[in-house]
């Protein structure tokens, strides 16, 4: 039996207060998993731990069977991480940025060049390929980092709010590109505050609040467990503070 794309077992992380507590989660290859939660729920901390940017206090994280602490380089080779704020070098052009990313992930030059051109063309950035990113709009910056995330054809994509700032066409393109990666056997973990997006693209949904996983399953399973409620109703019912929940009731 092949290893899951992502496996978290008993993962905890504490800063001045617990950020993530005893998180167990498995994402299979060929699956889009949406991690939902209110602000400060621990989503970004979880993704950063998976990306190897933060080390968990307890538990294990494995990417396709590779422990991210024991062998971070091997784990990172398989994944792409897209932060909630686009990380870009203002003084590089998109093509230079992709060249840099290609070097970091050791993609053969010709292949990298071909993929970079294809991605930039598809995302409508090819005409801007020689312009420095400093003057880019939020959407253009987001497209550039999306291209960078897809450049090395990762087997696991960890995407924090990937559609922020994108126009309708670019948003659809990105969703199509993610679907293509998934069809090729990759897995995608995505966080979003737009519940309709999660409902539409995710195979399974996890809802997290105060660092704990509160609910997990397909949208149909969640509906069945919550009496046919909408995702918004389920989400708010699980994550609203007690006083608000009382008012809602």
């Amino acid at each position: 039996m092949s290893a899951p794309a992502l496996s978290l077992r008993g993962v905890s992380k504490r800063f001045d207060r617990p950020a993530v507590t005893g998180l167990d989660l498995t994402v299979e290859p060929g699956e889009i998993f949406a991690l939902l939660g209110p602000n400060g729920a621990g989503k970004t901390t979880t993704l950063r731990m998976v990306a190897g940017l933060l080390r968990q206090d307890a538990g294990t994280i494995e990417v396709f069977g590779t422990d991210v602490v024991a062998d971070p380089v091997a784990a990172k080779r398989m994944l792409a991480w897209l932060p909630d704020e686009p990380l870009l070098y203002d003084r590089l052009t998109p093509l230079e940025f992709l060249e840099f990313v290609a070097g970091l992930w050791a993609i053969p030059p010709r292949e990298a060049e071909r993929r970079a051109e294809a991605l930039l063309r598809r995302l409508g950035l090819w005409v801007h390929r020689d312009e420095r990113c400093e003057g880019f709009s939020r959407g253009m910056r987001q497209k550039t980092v999306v291209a960078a995330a897809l450049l090395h054809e990762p087997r696991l994509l960890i995407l924090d709010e990937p559609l922020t700032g994108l126009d309708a066409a670019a948003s659809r393109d990105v969703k199509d590109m993610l679907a293509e990666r998934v069809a090729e056997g990759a897995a995608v973990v995505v966080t979003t505050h737009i519940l309709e997006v999660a409902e539409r693209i995710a195979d399974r949904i996890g809802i997290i609040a105060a660092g704990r996983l509160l609910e997990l399953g397909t949208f149909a399973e969640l509906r069945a467990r919550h009496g046919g409620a909408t995702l918004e109703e389920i989400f708010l019912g699980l994550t609203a503070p007690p006083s608000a929940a009382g008012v809602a009731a």
Partner: protein
Amino acid sequence: MTQAAPSASLGFLLRHELRLAWRRGGLARLGVSFPLAVLLLLVFLHLVAFGLAESVRLMHWTGADYIAAITVGLIYAFGLMLMQALRQSLDVLYEGRDLAWLASAPLPLRTILRARMAAIALNAGWLWLVLAGTMADALAVLVTPAALGIYPVIAALALFAAAFSISSIVLLRDLVGLRTMRTIVMVFSMLAGGSVFVGSQVRSVLSAPERAALWRALHPHGAGIFALPWWPARAAMGSAVPLFAFVAASVIVAGLAGAWVERRFARGGFDNIARRVVRRATSAPAFRTGTWRVLLTKEWRLVWRTPGLIGRAVYQGVYLLPVTIAAWRSGSAIIAPVMAATPVFIGSELARLFMVTAMAGDQATALAASAPVALRRVRAAKFLATAGGAATLALPMAIAIGAWWPATLLPMLAGMMVAFAGALLIGEASVIPDRVIDLGNRPGEMFRGAVLGPVAGIAWALTTWFTVQGKPLGFVTAAAAVLVSVIAILR
């Protein structure tokens, strides 16, 4: 019945501007409260000012002496105010990007621009109000109450500086575009600051007879005391007509500048802020293999595309100019060590600036941290790229000096190597292990680097200076340099 909320007033906006300005400053970043900082500063400065004022009183200066001294002081203050006002105008009008957002609020554009100009004037003038004001307080008690005229004169000078800077920046932007305007402003403000510094080093640059001649030239003679050039100084001494005229002129000039800038913005100035500035690469990148190569290429590109960094480092050389001139005038025995210390200091500053920027100012550190590359390799590439950049700029100077004074070559090269290593250590020290993200959001680290860097640079330059002279004191400064490096590592 609810009452309609009043529109934001000039005072409200000014308070907002000043709060932003204070929080951009180093003291706020260190957590010092504003009232406490002002109180401590005022107490300390008044103690110093009373001592100085007593000395002035005992010197029995004539009116002409006072006018000459105050004129020089006002020119000095205005130069530095102008430097500050130009940089801040650039920031609040074009770099901050919040002006268009503020203008979308339901209040007149005039109010917003007036608040901005007043904030620029206050930012440029507050230090001088405090410095000259405390001196004026002391002189008012010990010599004459008319000395209090310095307060409105400093305020008027700050208004002049704000009006000039804000209108010239808008005019330049219209004439030559945002990018060229930015370069011109940076160069001009550096020249203003640099010339004021060099001017302050008259004692080093000029001989005693030359200084005496200059002092005489700066004196008004006879009826000349009433000539226009001396009006600011006379205003500062409390003379009613010059004081009223000077303050009135500053208010009128500021009003005209504000109205003119408002008209320019109303006619499409915001389009220019919003317009995307496109800067293209000169050639398409060649995709290559090799982590080292891409890391080095990226760092080099970023360093060379930040000309302000190089400008700032080279600008440090201005501070060496008076020393160099003084050494030149004093004879050949001292010129060689001074010249040898220069590239060491500049090289150290360049390496430090590049390194701190590359390490603590990296915009996308987390990207490399999420890549399948060992972090030590990323850091090593940064070391190589920044040291190579500094060496490219500083070595030709060292080689030229070494060709002229061969005995300086080895100490100079050794000094530069130590300086580079130290700068790299400072850059390395600005990274906290296991916390590779969010480096750009830790101004405290940048501040520490900014303090440690020049101290280390001066120490290594002194080491070279003493070593070239064959003095054992070189070992003391070398020890100090090592100490700074150790502090940088262990902090």
